């Protein structure tokens, strides 16, 4: 029985339970809407390609060497008030899509994972009755880090959503692990976002991450200006960001599109790749691949200047198979 089926049955069986209040008609949020941008931060970085951070023109590439693309989505809505505690219905999924010789995108075999759960702090509301009814529940208490605010309903929602984000990242990491283990079919994988920590020394090969948001800066002053004024089709020198507790990666900035008349970050992406010599040699080539990925456009997505089409394809695929708001609304009707 799926979680939706179990939830529907639970709601019907507990319609007279004063501890339960069903919340209907709340908007269902996708990743874009619900995730508050991370707080601005500055991290240290060390230039590993040369001595200073420089701009480098990217040699034109005939095509793209990326053959596989990994992305995940999450959906959530406030579903229940259980013993006075907001309970979030959360759905997360991730997949790897393959671009075949015909240049069409398809799901890689067995490269789809998803998870659906009710998320709330177990410390504030009992989960036993829910789990007995077949409902998978996830405790969001560990994400509550602000002392004294743990039972603030607004904060409960926030940290429960952060827990859902962890779930999504876990799925993405699991898929990446699976892809690495399988040998990756001899292709290159592009991951949407930062490279997760694979947990395997030397395991991440032929993988790159594409970061579209720039809440974290690694350079300041003149170097920061070089990054933000990077012309279209150029990249920076490779640097190694400091990631506390994570395996080291190499990174560089790349301007995908002409930012004239636009925000400083228009078309600006940061690339991450495993920290090894091969990547250092291939930074220009990988940048060329990403420039080739500019077509087709990802419009009408608002992030079209930085979102490459195959990553959007992954999102579209995952959204098409995710449970719809209409269905959830219907199931929560008593």
């Amino acid at each position, binding site marked *: 029985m799926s979680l939706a089926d179990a939830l529907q049955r639970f709601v019907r069986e507990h319609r007279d339970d004063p501890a339960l209040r069903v919340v209907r008609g709340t908007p269902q949020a996708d990743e874009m809407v619900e995730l508050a941008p991370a707080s601005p931060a500055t991290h240290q970085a060390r230039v590993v390609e040369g001595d200073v951070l420089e701009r480098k023109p990217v040699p034109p590439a005939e*095509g*793209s060497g990326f053959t596989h693309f990994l992305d995940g989505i999450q959906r959530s809505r406030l579903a229940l008030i259980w013993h006075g505690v907001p309970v979030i219905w959360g759905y997360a999924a991730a997949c790897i899509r393959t*671009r075949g010789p*015909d*240049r*069409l*995108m398809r799901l890689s075999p067995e490269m789809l994972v998803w998870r659906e759960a009710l998320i709330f702090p177990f410390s504030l509301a009992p989960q036993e009755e829910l789990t007995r009814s077949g409902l998978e529940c996830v405790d969001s208490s560990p994400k509550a880090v602000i002392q004294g605010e743990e039972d603030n309903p607004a904060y409960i929602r926030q940290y429960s959503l952060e827990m859902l984000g962890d779930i999504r990242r876990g799925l993405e990491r699991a898929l990446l692990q699976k892809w690495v283990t399988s040998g990756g079919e001899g292709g290159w994988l592009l991951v949407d976002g930062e490279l997760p920590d694979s947990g395997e020394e030397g395991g991440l090969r032929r993988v790159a991450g594409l970061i579209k948001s720039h809440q974290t800066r690694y350079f300041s002053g003149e170097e920061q200006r070089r990054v933000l004024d990077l012309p279209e089709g150029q990249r920076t020198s490779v640097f190694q960001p400091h990631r506390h507790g994570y395996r080291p990666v190499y990174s560089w900035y790349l301007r995908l599109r002409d930012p004239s008349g636009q925000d400083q970050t228009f078309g600006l992406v940061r690339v991450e790749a495993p920290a090894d010599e091969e990547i250092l040699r291939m930074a220009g080539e990988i940048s060329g691949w990403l420039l*080739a*990925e*500019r*077509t*087709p*456009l990802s*419009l*009408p997505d608002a992030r079209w200047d930085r979102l490459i*089409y*195959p990553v959007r*394809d992954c999102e*579209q695929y995952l959204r098409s198979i995710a449970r719809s708001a209409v269905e959830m609304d219907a199931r929560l009707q008593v």
Partner: protein
Amino acid sequence: MISEREIAAHSGTGRPQLTQVGRVVATEPRPNTAYEFHFWTGPAAPVGIGTLVVVLAENVEVYGVVVEGWSYTDVASAMHDYIGLDGDPATEPVTRRPEIRCYTAAVLRREPEEPVQPVPGGPVYLADDLHVRRALRMDAYADRTGVAVGAYQNGELLAPVYLDADFLLGPEAAHVTLTGVSGLATKTSTIEFLLQSIFAARDDVACVCFNVKGHDMLFLDFPAEAEPGSPLEERYRELGIPPLTDADRALYRLLGVPCRAFEHVEYYAPFREDGINLNTLRTNPEVTGNVHPLAWGLQDIMEFTEVVLSRDDVDAKADALIQYINQKVIGAKNGYNIGDGRAPIYVRTFADLEEWFRRVFDHMESGDNGRGMEQYRSHHYQTLRKVHNRLTNLITRYRGLLTPREERFDLPWGSFRPRTVYVVDIASMDPQGQDLVVTRVVSKLREYLERKALGVDRCVVVVDELNKYAPSDGPETNLRKTLLDISERGRYLGLVLFSAQQFRSQVHKRVVGNCGTSIYGRMDMDELATPGYQVLTRAEREKLATLSKGQLMVRHPHFSQAIFVKFPRPNILRGSDGVRLFPPADPVPLEEAIFQEFSRMDSTVQRNQVREALADADHDAAVEAFNRVKVLKSAQPVSDFQRFIRKKARVEEPGQTPRSFGAPPPVDGQDPFAD
């Protein structure tokens, strides 16, 4: 519902051999209904407009025909694509956008029939032979009353499509209307193949074709390709007459129709003005054996005076006189007593009628003690003069078709043979003459079928250019009334109208509305833009405008939707090839015409015999005698011809008195010149 056993028997494997090509999809803006559903396919799926599909859902099977298709990608605006490729259409993006192919199918049938619910989601399969049969409800009649009209094709699948004879030839429904642009031979070919198919399935049907254009239907008895080893084989090859293809022969086999020309065809054509040669393109001596004259006398057309006389001419007075002549004068058993003190006059021919008028006028002009009579039996002198003028003028107006004499040539009323095509060639006649011929032939068919005396139970009447004979607007003509009558009552009588036209929209709506079966070849876009075609989807209309030769769209009472089929090129010599193979002969003089005709009757006839028989003979008398010999189908044509010549020349023979104009007919009423 098709049982597993049925499918197993059909496929021989125990499992349905259906190819899944798609999946039903319903969205809020484009929901499925009980009569229409949508499905998507992969880009390589062999699905197109007209494809028959079947949805196998849990509790219901739904058969549909694809009536619309569309495809799209995930690009929201063409501008996005343009910008993405920097305005260079030659740029190939590294990733292809997915392209979805969606189709709308109109429901043909559902099992079980009730309850009528929206089509459920489920896999969509291409219909195979068995499912085509079920989809078109042919399982109910194909083995009993099926008449093959063509084959439904999808890739390598060719499934026969049958019409129901009860709805094609009556009595449940009847008539076929066939529409298509000119010049592709689709209409003629379709009618030829459909007739072949009917003759293959039924042995109680004959056909009357009106050849209204050139040589279209003048070689129905010759195959499209000569039999190997036949004398014509080399000539076919020399002229480059294209043979049938293997695919055509295969289609014939599939449809169970013998791949051969019509075995029994008789041609009828009026005379030219000379009264000797026939006014047709089938005059090559090699092929005139089954070509017969069509010549009618006074009594044949008197009941059609409203056809042959201008409506403006025939006022109430004239009409009264014509009726009087028709009822009291013509064919009066004991002759007509004019009252002039002379013997009664017997009026059977135009010549007799002329004599009757002459005596009446003499009587009136000398009557009333020489002062002259104003009226004759309540008919005014001027009316008599007017009617005399109009009736006797008919011989001139319809020269070649109407004969002033007694010899007449007509279709074999009462002895029609099944599986025989009677072609009436009126292509060279003026519109008035065509009207008269079609009206009279159809009227006679109706008359004989009502009496069940035609010789066959059913007769198909083929009329080309129906928009000319039964137009949706214009004056009410007798011919249009006749065609309307056939379309409305014909199915009860066994009189079936197969009509062809370029513009169905210009045919009278009652004729079109009464046609149970409608067939369409390639259509003109202007015609498709008329309101009558709005029931078709745009895709169907587009397809109709681009149909290739041999492809048709068929609507039939058993088919809930229009079906596209293909039919073989008929194994019948095209008219254009026919006139190259058998070039029309120039009109021949009387002597040559007589020799040719008599030689066919008696192979021992010598040319000098004919020349001697003609010596010193009056030309008109010789023509009349010649025609009498033809009517008699004499075994001794020359001697009979000589005898008739002598009689006409008033050469008295012992014990015989020739009949003059107005003289009483012989007692037996058959041949006044018989010995």
